[in-house]
Structure formats: structure tokens, C-alpha cells
């Protein structure tokens, strides 16, 4: 039981970085960034390859840089070349498949056998005892949270937030929205790649398909978290991403151990939940309208 809890917390913290990335791209910039799936694998692939070469710490930074590059390509497509934002993400994502294979040495998966990882390095120091994995995963995620909240209060951060809120006003305030979208997407994809990089070192492997559907799972985490924290401020959104991600991993663990839902169906369940959650405002409006219509027809007899 304790093992299940530990694993859920560890995975929750690591995948929370994807939810944080989506918070930045989807909530703040109002762009559905479909590069996410490919970027996650890119982070994992780069991380495993560089770790294999004997540099587990450098691997993290390499993955961050690779993720930022992927974000830049998507941003370039949509801000400079006029590709619609969703399509830009899909195009980059498709291209990334090949890049990811390349990064893993033209193989669909890569493993770390005896190499040192961030996790094994920390374990060797003895810090954290049995909880060293949570310590590392949580530490990285919380550090990113603090940096993200602080960043969004700076001049650039404010400009990025305003770009997602009212693009016209941003242009009239001497801020270049194309540049802000580029910075935002680079950061979001760097975070997604970081998630992939840490997960890969944790699981000691990278797989070309490990990113499939991660954008929807990340959104699910964010939405689950937001039902608890609300969407009033940036800090709440960041907390929502982390809490939501942990809750999601607990639900996942419960399903995995109790088998209430066959594990093969999990993605369908997640897709339905996310679809419903995003559709909720419209559904509520529609229901209210129907109630009004019925009330009116009862009264007026029309």
C-alpha cells in the first residue's frame, strides 16, 4: 500500500510538469499546443541518450533546450508563417516522431542499464532515505512552480499573460504578441520535455509511444486541480496543475490495483472526462436555456 502511495506521488510530481506546461500554453496563452505529445518523448529520448553517455545532470538541461526548440518551431509556424495554431502543433508533433527516433539512435525504445541517473546519484548520497525519489521529483516540480509564478509577475510575464487575454490591447501597449507567444511556447515545451526527461531517468527507459495522449492527460490533471483551487490567480493555477496531477495518479493507481475499469480503457475514460469538463460551461448554459423554454411554454401555453 505504501508503495502504491509513493509511486502515485512520484509520478504525480513528475507528470505535473506537463500540466504546468499546459497551464502556460492553454490557460495563459489560450493556445491548445499539440506539440506536447512529441515534446514529452523528445525530452525522454534526449535524456536517455545523454545519460547513456554518462551525463545525467547535463541530460536534464539538454532536454530543456530540446523542448524549447520544439516549442520555437511551433511558435514560428503560427506567428510568422500564418499556420493555424492547432495545425502548427500537429505539424511539429509529426516531425518530432522522426527526430525522436533519431535521438534514440533510430530505435523505438532505449534503456538505461547500469548508468548513473539523477535518482541513483541521490540514492547514493543517502539523502531522503526511502523517499529519495519523491524528494527529487517533488523538488524539481516545486522549483519549477516557484520559478513560473515569479516569472509571470515580471514585465515579460505580464506581457505574456496579456497576450493570451487581449491581443489587440497588447499590440497597442507596444508589446509584440508574436514574440510573447514564442517565449511562452518555448517555455511550455521546455517544461514538457523536462517532464519526459525526469520520467525517463526514473523508469530507466524511453519509448517512442510514451507521449501518446499526454496532452489530454495533462489537461485532465489541470482541470481536476482547478475544480479544487478555482481559476482566480496564477498561483492557484500552478497549484491546481500539481494537485490535479497527483490526484490523477492516485485514481490511476486505484484503477490499476482494484481493476474497476480495465486498464486498457483508461485513455477512453480520460478523454470522456476531459471532453465533458471542457464542455461543461456550454452544457450548463444549454440546460438552463431548456429549463427556461419549458417554464415559458408551461406559463404561456404556446
Amino acid at each position, binding site marked *: 500500500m505504501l508503495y502504491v502511495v509513493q509511486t502515485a506521488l512520484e509520478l504525480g510530481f513528475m507528470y505535473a510538469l506537463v500540466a504546468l506546461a499546459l497551464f502556460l500554453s492553454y490557460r495563459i496563452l489560450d493556445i491548445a499546443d499539440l506539440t506536447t505529445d512529441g515534446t514529452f518523448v523528445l525530452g525522454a529520448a534526449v535524456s536517455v541518450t545523454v545519460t547513456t553517455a554518462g551525463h545525467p545532470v547535463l541530460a536534464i538541461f539538454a532536454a530543456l533546450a530540446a523542448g524549447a526548440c520544439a516549442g520555437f518551431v511551433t511558435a514560428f509556424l503560427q506567428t510568422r508563417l500564418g499556420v493555424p495554431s492547432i495545425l502548427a502543433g500537429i505539424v511539429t508533433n509529426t516531425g518530432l516522431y522522426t527526430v525522436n527516433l533519431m535521438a534514440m539512435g533510430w530505435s523505438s525504445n532505449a534503456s538505461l542499464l547500469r548508468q548513473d541517473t539523477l535518482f541513483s546519484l541521490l540514492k547514493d548520497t543517502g539523502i531522503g532515505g526511502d523517499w529519495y525519489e519523491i524528494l527529487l521529483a517533488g523538488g524539481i516540480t516545486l522549483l519549477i512552480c516557484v520559478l513560473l509564478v515569479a516569472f509571470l509577475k515580471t*514585465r515579460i510575464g505580464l506581457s505574456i499573460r496579456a497576450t493570451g487575454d487581449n491581443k*489587440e490591447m497588447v499590440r497597442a501597449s*507596444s508589446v509584440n504578441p508574436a514574440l510573447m507567444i514564442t517565449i511562452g511556447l518555448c517555455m511550455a515545451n521546455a517544461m514538457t520535455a523536462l517532464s519526459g526527461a525526469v520520467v525517463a531517468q526514473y523508469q530507466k527507459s524511453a519509448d517512442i509511444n510514451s507521449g501518446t495522449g499526454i496532452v489530454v492527460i495533462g489537461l485532465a490533471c489541470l482541470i481536476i486541480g482547478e475544480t479544487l483551487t478555482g481559476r482566480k490567480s496564477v498561483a492557484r493555477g500552478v497549484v491546481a496543475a500539481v494537485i490535479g496531477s497527483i490526484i490523477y495518479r492516485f485514481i490511476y493507481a486505484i484503477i490499476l490495483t482494484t481493476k474497476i475499469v480495465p486498464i486498457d480503457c483508461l485513455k477512453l475514460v480520460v478523454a470522456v472526462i476531459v471532453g465533458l469538463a471542457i464542455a461543461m460551461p456550454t452544457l450548463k448554459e444549454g440546460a438552463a436555456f431548456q429549463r427556461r423554454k419549458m417554464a415559458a411554454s408551461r406559463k404561456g401555453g404556446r
Partner: protein
Amino acid sequence: MLRLENIKKTFNPGTVNEKCAVNGLSLHLKPGDFATIVGSNGAGKSTLLGAVAGSFYVDEGSIILDGKDITFMPEHRRSKVIGRLFQDPLKGTAPHMTIEENLALAYLRSSEGKAPFSRISRKDKEFFREQLSLLGMGLEDRMKQPVGLLSGGQRQALTLLMATMVPPQLLMLDEHTAALDPGTAEKVLELTQDIVERNHTTCLMVTHNMHQALTMGNRTLMMDDGRIVLDIQGEERKNMTVAGLLEKFRAGAGKDLDNDRILLSAEKEM
């Protein structure tokens, strides 16, 4: 200050919706000029402001601001020195950000070369509070609230403050009080006049109110069919009446003014 040389802009060229919105227009504003613009529906008033602001590039002609050719300068660079207000009060502010954050964003204009990673300082906040109190709307006590909670008039006043807090070289107002209720419109107009006078800002204001067109500022322009058909100032303007202005328009454009809103507001004045 502002010199427009023979500018021309056609929207949707080569289609059935082709529309020559500004057609060979020239205009010269002296520093401190405050010109009001009236004109018939589709005369090209908003297009003129859009061309100067850089919402699109003109097809022909050149735009020179303060001796600098800005014809091909992108909009976000022009907005460093050009402040702009729209008719829609929702256009000028970011609804999910607080009043303070919106002001900080507008204040970026002054922060050329300041570190992009710096945050809003206490000194900045004090300055914002002071500026907000000048509006006399009590907004200085609501700085942490999101702008989406403000009324249209309050948002427009805030936008006005944001556009002028760092005094721009040119301020452009596109019927910025038309969507407000009469009382609020009056108040925002008063604030506009105060601020423009205080900073001696060169200003272009589109209005549909003939009375405002004659009383505000020092110069009245009338537009029709993408051109300026009437440009009066000084004595001639001082002695002009709303009826006289309509008569002049008929003489200049060769037809009656067909802006329904203008006519409605003109009837009230006569």
C-alpha cells in the same frame, strides 16, 4: 508632428467586396493640434486612425510622425509613441488581469532598456495609485481587482489613463465615449480634455457628435468617401454652427451627410 502624404488603402482588392477606404488623403497636424473628425458612414475615419496606428500598412503614400517615416513600422513599435482608444471599452484592457497589472503593462512603454525580468516595484505602485486617483472613480482602492469587474465607463477611463500615463506623441480616440451612457461619457470626455491639455498632446478624435466636433480641440475635419472634404480652424471654426457645418459638408462632398447617428445628435443640438 504628424504628416500624411497622399495615403491610400483598399480593402479586399480584386473581390466583390473591394472597398477603397482611404483614397489619396493628406493631412498635416502641428504639435499640440487637437483635431476632431466627423464624417458620413464608411467615410474612412477609423481606417485613417488604423493606418496611422499601423493596424495595416497603407498601399500608397507615406506617414511621418515627428520627422520619422513610420509607413512600414509594425504596429507594436508605433504604439510606443502612439496612444489609442477604441469605441469598445473591452478592447483596451486585459479583463483577467488586475488594474495594477494592466497599468504595469501600459507603463512598459516607458521602460525601454529596463530589465525584462524586473517586477512591479513599490514606487511604480505608488505612481499608479496617484494616477488612478486623478480619475476620481475610486479605482485606486481596487488595484488588486481584475479589470473584468469594472463597468464600461471605468474601463474606458482606465484605458485612457493607460494610453496617456507615459505621454504619447500622438493620441488617437475612435468614438471612445460612444458606447458609454451619457453621464459617464461626459466624465470620460472631461478627463480626456484635462489630460490632453496637461500634456499638450497632439490628438485625433473621431466623434459622431457635431457639437463635440466644434467645441473640443482646435480643429475640425470632415471626411467623406476616403477624403478630407472640410478642414476648419481658428476664427472660421469659432463662428461655425452645427447647421453651418452640415451646409459646408453638402458643399464639399456634393451630397447630404448620411451618418444617422450624427444626424440624431445634430437634431438635439439644433
